[in-house]
């Protein structure tokens, strides 16, 4: 009874190649760890060095309005983008005919390819002036709602404009993701619904939306992750002040972390740049958490849905 274990003879080429591939794969983990570590190390002088004029009340008081601005702008963007993304995804997956739908898919993907600095330029020179009369109207007629209260900005460079620009920017990725999920709806469920005499909307309500719910949630989370980190469009469009303000039509808006870094960093000297890096670390932490939750939802869904 000879039990021969296939003791693998490994060729040199195989060993080298497999290791190269392995190190390339692991370098992803290493890179993320290094990003966190370097940002952390470079943040330290902000706390140990001489006091920084901009942050005389301490780091957390400095960063908090930016955290608020970051989250607030992203939430506005999400409120606008999510229903639109669902609409676009439904239109492409279930309403338009197939050839046309593919073309539309390309068009939406093109939105994703436009550089953010171009969005910024467009946002400030085209969108802001265009929206301003509507902002006036909202303030006059719906000013009793706190969000629309206050002195309306004359330039249109407000939180709401930023939210709309961000919404446009995250729309393609959200729509693409939701569309994928909708297209995975088991045909059998759809046909079963139609066979029961359902209209198209009833079929969507019965078969497509329940199936796509986690997909919509994770797409929203990913869109949130994107908009949290978006820099240039915000830096160019928003007229910022270091306050916390819920009103979305005024000219005193809480800046976002990313935009604040972009605006301050080129001029920053001494440990002010370390302070900005520390705020960057806060942003990194926030986006990582949001992204990890989103990816976790997606991977859980992939395990349970049985699709693919």
């Amino acid at each position, binding site marked *: 009874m000879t039990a021969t274990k296939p003791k693998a003879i490994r060729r040199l080429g195989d060993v080298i190649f497999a290791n190269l591939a392995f190190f*390339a794969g692991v370098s992803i983990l290493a890179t993320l760890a290094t990003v966190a570590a370097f940002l952390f190390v470079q943040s330290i002088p902000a706390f140990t060095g001489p006091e920084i004029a901009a942050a005389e009340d301490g780091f957390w008081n400095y960063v908090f309005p930016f955290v608020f601005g970051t989250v607030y702008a992203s939430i506005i963007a999400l409120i606008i983008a999510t229903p639109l993304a669902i609409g676009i995804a439904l239109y492409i997956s279930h309403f338009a005919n197939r050839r046309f739908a593919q073309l539309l898919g390309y*068009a939406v993907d093109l939105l994703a390819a436009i550089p953010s600095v171009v969005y910024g330029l467009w946002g400030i020179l085209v969108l802001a002036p265009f929206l301003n009369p509507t902002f006036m109207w909202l303030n006059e007629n719906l000013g009793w709602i706190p969000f629309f209260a206050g002195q309306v900005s004359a330039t249109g460079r407000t939180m709401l404009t930023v939210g709309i620009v961000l919404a446009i920017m995250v729309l393609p990725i959200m729509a693409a993701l939701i569309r994928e999920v909708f297209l995975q709806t088991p045909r059998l469920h759809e046909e079963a619904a139609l066979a029961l005499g359902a*209209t198209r909307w009833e079929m969507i309500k019965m078969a497509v939306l329940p199936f796509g719910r986690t997909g919509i949630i994770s797409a929203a989370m990913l869109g949130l992750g994107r908009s949290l980190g978006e820099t240039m469009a915000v830096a160019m469009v928003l007229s910022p002040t270091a306050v916390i303000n819920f009103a979305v039509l005024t000219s005193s808006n809480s800046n976002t972390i990313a935009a604040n870094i972009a605006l301050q960093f080129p001029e920053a000297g001494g440990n002010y740049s370390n302070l900005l890096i520390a705020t960057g670390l806060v942003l990194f932490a926030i986006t990582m958490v949001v992204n990890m939750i989103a990816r976790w939802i997606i991977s859980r869904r992939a395990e349970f849905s049985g699709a693919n």
Partner: protein
Amino acid sequence: MTSQVTSSFQGTADLPKWVSPAMLLAFFMGSFTLQVMLASSTEQNELNLIPVAVFGLVGYAVALYALSRFVEGRRKATDRLVTILVTAAFSLALIPLLSLAYTVVQNGAARFDAEFFTFSMRNIVGEGGGALHAIIGTLEITGIATLISVPIGIMAAIYLVEYGRGTIARLVTFFVDVMTGVPSIVAGLFAYALFVIFFGPGVRMGLGGAIALSVLMIPVVIRATEEMLKIVPNELREAAYALGVPKWLTVIKVVLPTALAGIATGVMISIARVIGETAPLLIIAGFTASMNYNPFDERMMTLPVFVYTSYANQGVDMQSYVDRAWAGALTLMLIVMVLNLVARLISKYFSPKG
């Protein structure tokens, strides 16, 4: 009896096909006329398109719903309403795309001339000047980023598809996805934090920009390559193994060539994705008005940063700065479009058939 059967198939009466588009047209015309009248009655003569769209759409939706509910019944009316909403959502998304394309082309054309592509901004205060230094910088920095990202990205994808098993592979897969969500400005700060160690505070260097872009580009390359490697049929790998070809040669000479067109497409798209990045380059590559061919020393201008600084730091002759910003934006958009187009053409014409 027969008449009953027929009627049960037909259900309620349907609205004729022309009703819906006719109503759409009517309501938008009406809304437009109303706004024109309102605009002329007040002092501000400017026509605001937002109320035109809002009143037109809401009026159309409400009216068609009511009519459909009366003629066709509640279920069909709801179906019609949803169709209107979904189509409206889609049209709404296309408006910014069209507006962007239109304004960028229209405003960019003013300075989209020979001088723009042959001069830097050295010693320019008002009119004239160009973005050659920025274009060179963008090409060099993106080129280096591509040289760094493509080998690492492809090898990492090979690891995930051909070798990866167990916990580490799952971790890598997960964090590649997470890495796609790293904010671009954080990548810039990372490159800065890395270079400060070697060159001291305040460092600005083209290479740093390339590093930052690589952080953003690698996960995109990995995802694209991974997808392409996964669709290479396993039968081809087995055919090669059965001929006594070792695994590494199978990957290099069978799997990669079969997936090549798809990988090239993915690389093109990932380049298009990072070539427009502004924030990280603003941080680590900085900005300058002069030509700098050396990515290993000193500030280096790039096209997106050129667009930003032209707009943000307007000099005395404001219009010429804004014009240059738009021309830069147009150039950038064209580069991105061309890259996307090339990507599509590659995948269309070079994928192996069968």
